[in-house]
C-alpha cells in the first residue's frame, strides 16, 4: 500500500484547520492551562505542516525543524506550568480573566 497517493494539500488543510481550532481555543478558553494546551495544539498543527512539506520535497529539514519545535514546546511547557502554579498559589484561580492586575 503506497501512502504517497494522498496529495500534500490534504495534510496542509488539516494542519490549517487544526491551527485555526487552536487559535479559537486560544481566544475562547479561560483556563490558563487550557490556553497553554491551545498553544501546544497550534504547534502541533505547524509540525504537521512541516512534516508534510518535508515529505513533499523528500527532504529531511522539515523533520529537523519539527524536532526543534518539540524542544521549544517542552521548554515552554516547563516554564509556563511553573508560572501557572505560582500564579495559582498567589491568586487561587486559573481563570485568566480574573488575573487582571496588570492594567492601566
Amino acid at each position: 500500500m503506497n501512502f504517497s497517493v494522498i496529495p500534500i494539500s490534504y495534510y496542509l488543510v488539516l494542519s490549517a484547520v487544526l491551527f485555526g481550532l487552536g487559535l479559537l481555543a486560544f481566544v475562547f478558553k479561560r483556563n490558563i492551562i487550557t490556553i497553554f494546551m491551545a498553544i501546544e495544539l497550534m504547534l502541533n498543527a505547524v509540525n504537521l505542516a512541516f512534516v508534510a512539506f518535508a515529505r513533499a520535497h523528500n527532504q529531511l529539514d522539515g523533520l529537523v525543524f519539527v524536532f526543534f519545535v518539540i524542544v521549544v514546546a517542552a521548554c515552554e511547557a516547563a516554564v509556563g506550568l511553573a508560572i501557572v502554579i505560582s500564579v495559582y498559589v498567589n491568586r487561587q484561580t486559573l481563570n485568566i480573566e480574573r488575573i487582571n492586575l496588570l492594567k492601566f
Partner: protein
Amino acid sequence: MIPFILFFLLAFVAVGAAVALIVAREPIHSALSLILVMISLAVLYLLLGAEFISAVQIIVYAGAIMVLFVFVIMLLNAGVEERTDFSKLAKWVGPILAFFMIVELGVWLSRSAIGRVVATGSPESYTPASTVGLSRMIFQQYLLPFEATSILILIAIIGALVLAKKGE
C-alpha cells in the same frame, strides 16, 4: 482507497478531538482530547513516512509534556473552568476571526503550489534514510541550533526551578 479512508479517519479524529478540547469544561478532558490529537497526528506522520518523528511526537508530547499538564492539573485540581466573559472583544471578535483564519489558511495552503504536489519518490527511498539522515542533519548541518536548543532547555529548567522555589 484504503489510504484515503485511513487519512480521513485520522483527520476526523484529530479535528473532533480539537473541537472537544474547546468545548470541554474540565481541563483534564481538554488534555485527553489534546493527547488524542497528538496521537492521531503521530499516525499521520507514519502515513507521511516519518516514523521516528511520530515516535518522538508520542514520547515527548504525549508522554512528557502532556503528562506534565495532567500532573499540574491534578496538583492544582482547580475544578471546572468558569466561563466568564469580561472581554467583549474576545467574546465577539475572537471566534469570528479564528474561523476566518481557518478558512483563509485552508484556502491558501490548499491552493498553494506545493499543495498540489503528490509526494514523489516511493516511501522506501525516503523512510529508511530518515532516522540515520535525520541524525546526520541534526548533528552536522544543524549542530549549532541543536546546541542552542540544549542551552534553551537548561535555561528553562533553571527558570522552572526558580519559579517553583518557595519564597524564602
